[in-house]
């Protein structure tokens, strides 16, 4: 199953991913249109800052998802095709138990609709829009084995520089 991986060292903190996420989850699907809409489309991933560090924090779609376990209305369930943990706004009653549960702090709120909003891995697309929009390719959508392979090859390419004979 594909997942979103983050290459922290590539992130410049531009937040294009957050913007793309909002536009994708809007009605108008345009930059200016999205920000004029009610309800305001909310981001589902967060480029968090701590000092100099800029790190995109994405939903992990946890195997044993705390948000899914905490949901008291059955709004949060797993999409069996993509393995994504998704929240259904029609069933959500806005109790915010999922926000209380998520250890990563990646569940957002629609203030107007009073429902929770979270990453759905962009079901209408081949790959999530945040990944596609990142200008530095800090976000990668691939299988764990493939990401691991990428990392190994990248390191191996530089390793010879560190070796002093």
């Amino acid at each position, binding site marked *: 199953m594909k997942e979103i991986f983050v290459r*922290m*060292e590539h992130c410049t903190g531009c937040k294009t991913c957050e913007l793309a996420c909002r536009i994708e989850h809007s009605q108008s699907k345009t930059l200016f249109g999205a920000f004029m809409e009610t309800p305001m489309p909310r981001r589902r991933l*967060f480029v*968090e*800052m*701590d*000092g100099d*560090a*800029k*790190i995109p*924090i994405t939903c992990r779609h946890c195997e*044993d998802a*705390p948000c899914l*376990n*905490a949901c*008291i*209305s*059955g709004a949060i*369930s797993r999409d069996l095709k993509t393995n994504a943990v998704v929240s259904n706004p029609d*069933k959500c*009653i*806005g*109790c*915010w*138990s999922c*926000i*209380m*549960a*998520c*250890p*990563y*702090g*990646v*569940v957002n*709120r629609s203030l107007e609709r*009073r429902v929770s909003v979270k990453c759905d891995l962009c079901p209408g697309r081949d790959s999530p829009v945040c990944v596609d929009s990142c200008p530095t390719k800090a976000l990668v959508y691939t299988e764990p084995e493939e990401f691991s392979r990428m990392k190994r090859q*990248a*390191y191996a390419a*530089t390793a010879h520089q560190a070796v002093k004979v």
Partner: protein
Amino acid sequence: MRYVIIGGGAAGVAATQALRRLDTNCQITIISGEDRVGYYRPLIPHLISDKFPEDRFNRAAGLLADLNAEIVNPAKAQSVDTRKKIVKLPQKDIPYDRLLLATGSQAIVPTIKGLKAEEVFTLRSYSDGIKLAQAAKAGMQAVIIGGGRVGIKAALALCEAGLKVTVVEMLGHILPQQFDAAAAAIVTPALEAKGIQLQTGWQVKEVTHRGKKKNVILDNGQEFPCDLIVAAVGVKPNLELAQLMGVGTDRGIIVNSNLQTSIPDVFAAGDTVQLIDVATGQSFVSGTWTNAVDMGNCAASNMAGVPQKYAGSMSIYNAVEIAGIPTISVGAIHGQSPQYEVHGQRWDNIYHKFVFQGNRLVGMLLITDIEKAGIYKTLIREGADVSQIKGKIISKTLNYATFLKQLTPETKQYAGV
């Protein structure tokens, strides 16, 4: 392998799902005393207000059928022969290899002079909800005894349905366990703005009757005539079966960290279980949906031979929006003893309160701004040493990047930074 689960609530259904994931060929039997199994109990107040349709209450269509679980309901286990490993029902005997006690809890009906048990409504089960929804008519007056979670939700639901509601809470403010006075002071005006009357600090002394009208009299002499009385004074765990079986109980069923009871092959999960509050070290009997689901998952794992330690929980562990105001309350939120260090900030409707004990965060109370609450909750639950990030917690500016950027020299090199 034959698993039998007594109880079809949050813990019982979670356990069924987990067992089926771990063991595709096993036999699972759920015995439930209710005529409706596997529904979302916390949605019951919506039967009164929003009139949610049936399918919103039921678990994902066909869930239990898909799990290939045998459901025996409504049925009450009379006893369990723990040597022969047989659950005895009036209609038949059900043998088991591993048994889960998930019998839940029941609403307490207070003993008050003049109050007749049959005229009191409680809001515990689906049928309770239907009964109250049918009796509650717009324009009626209702008195709710108890201003805790269920009392306030019932008040909002009845108010939505057009009734005039008075809530009587014996302690100084509503939600006395989940909130402190400052938090209650933010939420109270929002409730009163909806027309809900709150009488705090007084108990109901007596109920008299005048024809079909009831008269609720407080111990300060005030009288509240009404058509409906709802009791929301708490729940007590259903322990009779456990006690009959000889399972070790105190205020709840005593379990080890694998949710095993004192009797081999008998496990327990949900509202009946006595746990240790990781924030305060005190024992408590849980009463939340989330804890029941977590315990159901954990017990099932242990029953299926995959040992898993229960991660623990807090007796205060609640998220609820009251009259448009989001609130999240976790752990030791009062912080009134000298071992606690309390940091509270309030401006407008926003309230942040963090309670520390030594190096640990032990309590958090958030009103209106609940963003990223889960990060703080995790620190409380894990008993983490937060001395390095205390400032960020107090200012509520913590985010997950703080944990990820703690790179070791080795990982720094690997990450190319």
